[in-house]
């Protein structure tokens, strides 16, 4: 363990931590960054990301149009249903305005529009190579700037006296040591990878959850901050979850395990029954509800079934579909009751009303007299071969976090801000995003608050 007294120690190695470390160092501080993961797996969930949302007043080379602060705010209000701290949300939005320049200035590269494939978006910019390339660029910048970086360095405890941070206890290479600093930035993500913790709310069901991101986000420091009197924010039971292929790795499967097949067929549970409207809405709304839906089904498993008509209409998936020439055989492959599956599909097919199928809009292909209905894109499932994908809840992140103020200082239960204890990223995102999700907004919060925390921590440490 480095035997030095640092100005700022940053806990975490993802987007928020890196933005904090780079900014604190720029602010004249002597910075140590502690990342729990080994170098090859550094970067937390940030290394699985693809794009970031930011406010801008006009179109540019990488965005097709303006995305004003007001529109941004309205979107945020809509998805959170008002569960957001307006002052912090508006701060996030206004501070995001320069991301289009700040990120490239720190090594991140935007992806050029491609013919036929990636169309530019209006609200979000995409990084060339994805999140790992972004994280690599930040590590490179931080290192060149003089930030000291330690991998496989898990912070286990924080020594805090009445809201004042003193030191961090770090485990590294089988030993443990104490790192002292004038200020700390906690940017260690959520607790979604901590299955025992999830079990406190979900019971045994949590054993069947797939964690889309890093196994290192154990929420250790979140628990530590709460134990030291930080005021919690966000519903601890809630998480953002999507439907992923049940064959996905338990951790770190990232983006490729998600499945886009749902609207092109039906979804049944272990009892071979449908349980929700597969045609309710477009991605991303549909995308973000199916994880939670499946988490509430028996055995936390479901099966997306499409026939020859639906096959090939969605993004290629990473695991091959289970394929059969008849529904009975398919039921055999899936271990479902064949008669129940045939009955479900037949009832569905009978309820489908004719319409003109159009996956690019909320079309008029729907069921009638069926519970639950399929309100769009409903076509009979009757043309072999039949395909099935087993689905599990894939947890993206958890909502529980610590309250912060505009300086990114952790706010204690009695309302006092902790003077030298800062938080950024997923660990405080619940202040702004108490519920729901906006694509690319996780990184916005992390970048904005990472920079604020870095700036304020440096100011606290070196004046």
């Amino acid at each position, binding site marked *: 363990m480095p035997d030095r007294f640092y100005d700022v120690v940053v806990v975490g190695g993802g987007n928020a931590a890196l933005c904090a470390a780079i900014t604190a160092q720029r602010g004249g501080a002597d910075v140590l960054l502690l990342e729990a993961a080994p170098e*090859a*797996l550094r970067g937390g969930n940030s*290394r*699985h990301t*693809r794009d970031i949302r930011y406010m801008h007043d006009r179109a540019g080379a990488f965005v097709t149009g303006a995305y004003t602060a007001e529109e941004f705010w309205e979107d945020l209000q809509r998805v959170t249903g008002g569960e957001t701290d307006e002052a912090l949300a508006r701060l996030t939005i206004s501070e995001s305005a320069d991301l289009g320049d700040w990120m490239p200035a720190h090594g991140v*590269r935007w*992806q*050029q529009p*491609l*013919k*036929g*494939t*990636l169309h530019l978006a209006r609200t979000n910019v*995409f990084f*060339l*190579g*994805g*999140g*790992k*390339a972004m994280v*690599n660029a930040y590590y*490179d910048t931080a290192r060149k700037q003089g930030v000291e970086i330690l991998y496989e360095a898990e912070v286990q405890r924080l020594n805090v006296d009445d809201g004042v941070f003193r030191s961090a206890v770090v485990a590294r290479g089988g030993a443990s040591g104490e790192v002292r600093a004038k200020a700390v930035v906690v940017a260690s993500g959520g607790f979604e990878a901590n299955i025992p913790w999830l079990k406190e709310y979900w019971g045994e069901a949590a054993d069947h959850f797939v964690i889309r991101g890093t196994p290192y986000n154990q929420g250790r420091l979140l628990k530590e901050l709460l134990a030291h009197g930080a005021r919690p924010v966000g519903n601890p039971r809630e998480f953002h979850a999507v439907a992923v292929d049940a064959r996905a*790795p338990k951790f*770190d499967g*990232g*983006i*490729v395990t998600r499945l886009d097949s749902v609207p092109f067929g039906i979804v049944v549970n272990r009892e071979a029954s449908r349980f929700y409207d597969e045609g309710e809405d477009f991605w991303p709304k549909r995308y973000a509800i199916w994880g939670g839906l499946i988490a509430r089904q028996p055995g936390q498993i479901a099966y997306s079934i499409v026939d020859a008509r639906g096959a*090939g209409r969605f*993004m*290629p*998936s*990473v695991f091959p579909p289970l394929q059969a020439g008849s529904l009975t055989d398919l039921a055999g492959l899936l271990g479902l009751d064949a008669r129940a599956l045939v009955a479900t599909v037949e009832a569905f097919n009978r309820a489908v009303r004719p319409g003109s199928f159009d996956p690019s809009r909320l079309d008029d292909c729907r069921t009638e007299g069926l519970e639950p209905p399929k309100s769009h894109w409903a076509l009979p499932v009757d043309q072999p071969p039949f395909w099935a994908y087993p689905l599990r809840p894939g947890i993206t992140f958890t909502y529980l976090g610590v309250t912060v103020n505009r300086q990114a200082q952790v706010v204690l239960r009695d309302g006092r801000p902790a003077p030298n204890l800062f938080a950024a990223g997923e660990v405080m995102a619940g202040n702004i995003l108490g519920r729901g999700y906006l694509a690319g907004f996780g990184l916005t919060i992390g970048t904005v608050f990472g920079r604020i925390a870095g700036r304020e921590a440096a100011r606290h440490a070196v004046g």
Partner: protein
Amino acid sequence: MPSAELVQEAARQMVICNACRYCEGYCAVFPAMELRRAFSAQDLSYLANLCFDCRDCYYACQYAPPHEFAVNVPRVFAELRADTYRDYSWPRLLAGLYRRGGLAGGVISAVSVAAVLLLVLVLGGPGVLLSAHVGQAAFYRVVPYAAMVLPALAIALFGLAVLLAGAIRFWRDTGGSLREMLDGRALLRATADAFTLRYLAGGGAGCNYPDEGFSQSRRWLHHLVFYGFLLDLAATTVAAAYDHLLGRPAPYPLLSAPVVLGTLGGVMLVAGTVGLLVLKRRSDPAPAERRMVAMDVAFLLVLLLTSLTGLLLLALRETGAMGALLAIHLGMVAALFVTLPYGKFAHLVYRYAALIRGAIEQARA
């Protein structure tokens, strides 16, 4: 054909990439991949030859080892390319030999040099090797005209024929018709991409070579080698024209076109090949493939030795070393041409074909 395991492994990785697509902005491979859902051995050869081994997608990959998906696209593609160079060349025996890479390259070079020296000895007696030859047609006093021109021509023509046959078979196998090959716009696009090394530019930042940092060094060194080679080719062509059309046999004065072009080309080649060899030595082995590295090194060494001996010959052509140097240089040139269709040089042909195919597909999509 590449082994079934290799094809399966490359297809496995492409299925992951196709579900991910984060790297689609890096090079021509990903847009081409996105047009497919399943990957045959032929599709994979085509994609592998579109790959410039810039390694951007390796360092950017969230699934690179130690992740259990173990995606390492540049490596699996390098293996496939090594197989392409072997499978599409003829005769198999030579291709198989050269597959041993460095060693085979060295052996072939040594044998060719020895053969030329032997020829000289038999034809002219030991005296020619050790005495100075100056003036008009001095080279031919060391190696007689027919002995110099005919084997060289034969080897070069044979090499070109092997490469052309390989290119045509490759084109057919990867699903192209001959008419398509004459698609003017695609040819133009592919040629521009090849001559500028567009994809090694990495959109301005360069590529992840020799390591994780971005650098343009490989691109510039490759330019030196490629354009150096072209200059030397031009020098040889001009010299041939002087000789056969104007009746002015070599050697030429220092300020004549063949010597100026040849010297410039030679210096560029030496600088470029040495630079690339140094980069290769320093490069991260994780995304590299052993067989391909051996091929690269062998080819670079043969190129380097050919240009070095050429430059030496120029510098010492009026001394007693001229005879021996000429023989060695001609031996190296012979080695270069003998090995062309079986080693790394072949990338020129297959990569160009793949770029044309890519341009056609993208225009259609």
